[in-house]
């Protein structure tokens, strides 16, 4: 995966599929976290890493947002979902 960033927006090139995707700032942050984790990460781990100073309700919303982003990543082949 190759990324370029301009003013918070990220464009990703997937070398496996040859496809190019535009990510908004939040999706870009999730992707960075995912790429930084050597063995992948769960939605919960990603949400926790992004949940600085959030209350329980906000954390739940973050988890849902991360889950949606990861599902989209899986759909377009930017990330692989692992059921385990």
């Amino acid at each position: 995966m190759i990324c370029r960033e301009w003013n918070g927006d990220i464009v990703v090139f997937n070398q496996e599929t040859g496809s190019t995707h535009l990510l908004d700032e939040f999706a870009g942050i999730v992707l960075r976290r995912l790429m930084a984790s050597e063995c992948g990460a769960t939605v919960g781990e990603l949400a926790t890493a992004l949940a600085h100073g959030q209350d329980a309700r906000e954390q739940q919303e973050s988890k849902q947002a991360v889950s949606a982003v990861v599902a989209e990543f899986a759909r377009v082949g930017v990330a692989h979902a692992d059921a385990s």
Partner: protein
Amino acid sequence: MILADLSRSELERRLAGPGLRLRAGPVVTQIQSPLGAVADGVALHYAAHPIEGSDGFADFFVRVDRPRNLRRWLHPQAVFYIDGEAPFTPLPLDQAFPLLEWGLNWCISAHCHQYLIFHAAVVERSGRALILPAPPGSGKSTLCAGLIHRGWRLLSDELALIDPATSHVIPLARPVSLKNRSIDVIRAFAPAAVLSRPVHDTTKGTVAHMQATPDSVRRAAEFARPAWIVMPRYEAGATAALTTLPKARAFMEMVNGGFNYSVHGRKGFEALARVIDLCACHTFVYGDLEEAAKLFDALATKS
């Protein structure tokens, strides 16, 4: 030697016989055609272009001719051949020259993969290229035709050729395709512009081609450095206005208008990213060509 150095009879002899080897930018095409409409179009629009000897290299071998069947006589048609194959549906005979132009566009966009090729007009001033990517009907060619009659040099009306190694835009000065109302708009805006007789009822409506300016043809070896990507849109009555386009969005717009971006893979991604780095990116709406030309004049002067 340029095409205007040939007599009309010699031009027709070559077209109907061994072929005319015509250079447009980096591309040499051998053209054969016995059709008067093709000879007329080539003579009008490529007069200042270099021609090559028959012993040299040609990138494409094309022919525009009548079909080899009864349609030859009933509702006469023209067929575009490349290497003896006809990749397109025949068109009415009076569309023979537009067919040649559209066929040449296809030849380049489908084969010249040494370049990154995008669907965009490109004009140049002071060594800096203004890239105008836009879908059909957006007013791209009208704006391009207008700008080259207000001090900009034509690099291409339809195909932006970008060298992936240097990021330079490679000139491909060929006729500008004008459609429908834009034909009269350009006639009024630039009375000195040389236009072909309009051809009606094409798949794009009424089409006329405008000759590339002699300066654009003469300077075909002068590359340009990308400086602006501007997505134009004509809107009746609109005041000319540039709006900043986020670079990542501009990247995706270019990808969507790419003819061979996917062919280049990672190198294409990286090369396009370098082009985006070099450019200020905008959307542009305009309703008056004179106002648009002044705005781009100011843009080129101040930045």
